[in-house]
């Protein structure tokens, strides 16, 4: 729980009811799938039953003849886009790859790859039509692992893919090789008293949002289109849909519905361009929703990976060198988060000599998408368990080895420039001084593990508008989709600056025609960047309010002050009474008309985030099942605006990290077909699997941000897998190097250790 840190704030740091709360507990809130329009058709997608296949032909005649079927589209209905990185709105992206992921062109690259889309008068008829589409495939050998993809003579997924190292003539599955280097690792390892080197494998996992993807496309005869969908970024949906469809951005309006979870997975497009295309073909609104199996087979999970990590320390625990090798599954198209993995794997520590190599490898799996601190959890699983081994060899407490080496202000980052003020050390100290770590853990097969994690956070662009109503209440208009209570936080920032009650601020998420460009709700940026814009928009209101008061008082604006929600003359005396916003609001018409405060920003300075977690486990040595007994996470959030939702982010990321650690995994068979396409078999934690997750909010303000906000959404998912692995080691003495540490894997490791022990005992006899 947060310490009382409201110091000086009236609203920030309190826990008001979220403004969209009543709608969301009464079933009134409208998510994408809840919208319906007159004459609406239903769209469905035909998906590849092969992991890797050439598409020889697609025959749609029989399906089109089914009564109720209105249109069928394939890749031939989309413009062919250039096969190179190009700007799409705000980001650089290979548009050909994006388009080919939405509808396969010539080749199916994973089980579930979209082949064709149907619009019909009901979803059941659309389903029937899918069965009548005849596709002739020429199956190819699937490439399912980074090792298979990288080996010489590997089956090639994308014939045009090249990387810089291998040159323009060599076909490859390696889309990129990145390297980060500091000092001389060979020399560094010579200074080490202890060196630990391990190889890790982590499974592909899905974000697991409960709401499947959805989109409604409405194409008008005037060439304008409207998209209703649940997305983390309405503006990214607009720019990517426009690019895929070959129409200009300004002709698309995206209306963001409420969103049922995303965790990074809803920052791209799948159905949106198809819904518009089918609407254009039929003249009707077209609604498309995915089934759970479609979500798992064909939307972006995050990469499985192979990681080698070698670290060396002197006997007093000082890290002297680290070398890492990371290869991440990109999916059918390039773009895994391996770069982020490489830049985060050693970021929590000050190590003079480092060498990190990272490979982005295409494989016959769905194209990966962002997932909460993308790439960092895989990486931390490696480095944070190797560090635990080093601590043990050095005979140093695992938190102390982190304190000895921990990054702080001035420590060089993996990419070079030094960190500004950061709060890693404070998170380690919060755990070390906390009741949980100080408590004694007793009992057989129980163990405690700790780990730390880093995530960059991002800034980017946001816009905010504040309208002052005649009754003194205000409406706040932003473009950041509310995925976890951010409406309340934004309203609190406006209320704090304006000195009004938080319930007198009504926050609204606007469509792309009604607010300035706002980047995705992602990268832990919403309270940081949009909150910054809201802060500035409120300041803009105050500037205008002072002008109006000056007019009423026949003074100059700089002769008016605004303090504690009151406008008053700078020079006391006279009969001029201070006015609140409620008091001046009815007089705006007489002083020049309405007040609209506005601000837009491109937040360049960001506040890097760190978290440290402590986990207690109990392992059943007969089944290999791990129960989490207790978990406490300390995270530096800069400034907690609404502490309850900050705790919620910390708890939610921890829960996802525990699922990643223990259960979650994509199971592909030897033909590359996904075998666990439902939530019974893709096993996410239920409330029986988790203990109450305890939170320690650490507040080290981000330099440069007017409120010190750092961002809270992501870093909590980074340390849990490693902490659970460390706890399992301390419980049963086996070092796990594969995720998930499911009962079968852990039991195998326990039995192997037992057998080795018996062999040793026999040899000693």
């Amino acid at each position, binding site marked *: 729980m947060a310490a009382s840190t409201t110091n000086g704030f009236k609203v920030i740091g309190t*826990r008001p009811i979220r403004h969209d709360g009543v709608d969301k507990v*009464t079933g009134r809130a409208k998510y994408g799938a*809840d919208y319906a329009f007159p004459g609406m058709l239903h769209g469905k997608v035909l998906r590849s039953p092969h992991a890797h296949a050439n598409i020889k032909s697609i025959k749609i005649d029989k399906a089109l003849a089914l009564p109720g079927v209105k249109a069928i589209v394939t890749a031939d209905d989309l413009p062919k886009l250039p096969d190179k990185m190009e700007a799409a709105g705000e980001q650089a992206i290979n548009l050909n790859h994006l388009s080919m992921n939405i509808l396969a062109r010539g080749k199916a690259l994973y089980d579930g790859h979209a082949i064709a889309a149907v619009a019909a008068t009901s979803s059941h008829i659309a389903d029937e039509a899918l069965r009548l589409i005849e596709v002739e495939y020429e199956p190819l050998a699937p490439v399912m692992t980074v090792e298979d993809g990288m080996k010489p003579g590997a089956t090639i997924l994308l014939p045009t893919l090249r990387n810089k190292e291998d040159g323009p003539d060599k076909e490859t599955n390696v889309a990129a090789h990145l390297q980060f280097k500091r000092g001389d690792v060979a020399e560094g390892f010579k200074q080490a008293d202890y060196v630990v080197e391990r190889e890790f494998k982590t499974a592909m996992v899905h974000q697991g949002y409960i709401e*499947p993807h959805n989109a409604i496309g409405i194409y008008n005869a005037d060439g304008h289109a409207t998209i209703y969908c649940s997305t983390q970024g309405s503006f990214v949906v607009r720019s990517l849909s426009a690019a895929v469809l070959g129409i200009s951005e300004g002709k698309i309006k995206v209306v963001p519905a409420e969103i*049922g*979870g995303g965790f990074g997975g809803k920052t791209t497009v799948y159905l949106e361009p198809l819904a518009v295309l089918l609407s254009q073909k039929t003249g009707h609104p077209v609604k498309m929703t995915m089934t759970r199996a479609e979500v798992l087979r064909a939307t972006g999970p995050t990469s499985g990976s192979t990681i080698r990590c070698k670290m060396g320390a002197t006997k007093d625990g000082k890290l002297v060198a680290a070398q890492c090798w990371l290869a991440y599954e990109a999916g059918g198209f390039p773009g895994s988060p391996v770069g982020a993995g490489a830049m985060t794997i050693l970021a929590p520590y000050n190590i003079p000599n480092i060498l990190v190599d990272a490979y982005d490898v295409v494989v016959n799996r769905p194209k990966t998408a962002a997932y909460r601190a993308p790439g960092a959890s895989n990486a931390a699983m490696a480095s944070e368990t190797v560090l635990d081994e080093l601590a043990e060899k050095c005979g140093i407490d695992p938190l102390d080895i982190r304190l000895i080496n921990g990054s702080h202000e001035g420590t060089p980052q993996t990419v070079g420039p030094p960190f500004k003020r950061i709060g890693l050390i404070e998170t380690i100290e919060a755990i070390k001084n906390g009741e949980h770590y100080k408590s004694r853990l007793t009992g057989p097969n129980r163990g405690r593990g700790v780990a730390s994690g880093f995530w960059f956070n991002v800034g980017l662009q946001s816009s905010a508008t504040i309208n002052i109503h005649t009754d003194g209440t205000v409406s706040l208009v932003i473009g950041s989709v509310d995925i976890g209570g951010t409406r309340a936080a934004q309203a609190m920032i406006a209320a704090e600056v304006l000195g009004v009650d938080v319930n007198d601020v009504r926050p609204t998420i606007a469509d792309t025609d009604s607010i300035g460009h706002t980047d995705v709700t992602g990268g832990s940026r919403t309270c940081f960047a949009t909150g910054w814009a809201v802060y500035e928009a409120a300041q803009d209101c105050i500037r205008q309010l002072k002008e109006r008061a000056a007019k009423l008082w026949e003074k100059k604006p700089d002769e008016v002050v605004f303090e504690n929600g009151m406008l008053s003359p700078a020079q006391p005396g006279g009969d001029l009474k201070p006015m609140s916003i409620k008091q001046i609001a009815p007089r705006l018409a007489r002083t020049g008309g309405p007040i609209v405060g506005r601000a837009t920003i491109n937040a360049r300075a960001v506040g890097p985030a760190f978290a440290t977690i402590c986990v207690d486990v109990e392992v059943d040595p007969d089944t290999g099942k791990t129960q989490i007994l207790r978990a406490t996470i300390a995270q530096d959030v800069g400034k907690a605006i609404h502490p309850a939702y900050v705790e919620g982010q910390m708890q939610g990321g921890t*829960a996802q990290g525990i699922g990643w650690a223990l259960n979650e995994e994509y199971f592909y068979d030897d033909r590359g077909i996904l075998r666990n396409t439902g939530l019974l078999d893709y096993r996410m934690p*239920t409330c029986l699997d988790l203990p*109450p997750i305890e939170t320690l909010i650490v507040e080290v303000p981000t330099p440069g941000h007017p409120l010190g906000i750092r961002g809270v959404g992501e870093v909590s998912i980074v340390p849990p897998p490693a902490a659970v692995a460390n706890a399992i080691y301390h419980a049963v003495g086996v070092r796990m190097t594969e995720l998930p540490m499911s009962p079968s894997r852990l039991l195998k490791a326990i039995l192997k250790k037992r057998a080795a022990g018996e062999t040793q005992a026999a040899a000693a006899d």
Partner: protein
Amino acid sequence: MANKVIVETTINGDPVELLCEPRQSLLEVLRDVLELTGSKEGCLTGDCGACTVVIDGRPVCSCLMLGVEAAGKNVSTIEGLATGAALHVLQRKFLEHASLQCGICTPGFLMSAKALLDRNPNPTEAEIRYALAGNLCRCTGYDKIVRAVTDAAATMAGRSSRTAHGGAVPAETASGMVSEMLAKGEDK
């Protein structure tokens, strides 16, 4: 297309006569025929619980039942949980404890929790976690949900001083009440 069937049922206390295809699930009938979109679709296989409704006192995944099977049954959905403009204690506690982030699982959790408290007004934490294990939440890690249900049970039994009034509170005053609690330093 199969011939549609007339189904007579009771939904949130009101008699309803509806027309649906035999192949339509109860969830589809609620959402697409009756426009009761508060019940959510997360999986269609009974694994996530987002579509939970209460039928004759038992929580049921409405995606696993056909609409025609609702004939003669008493179906309660999230749309019927509040009484007029007054939220149910569970709804209010979910808001006070910040038990929802994205909110897509919330209707299902509320209906499962309602069924639990109706048959066991004084559940232990383990009983709450067991009763809610059929509902998946990916945002919260469940901690604040379990706390809200625990607090709601205590409130309904009149065991908690800070919510001694029990029963339902008008929606529009719910947030005002919490602000008041904050001012008194009673919350958290």
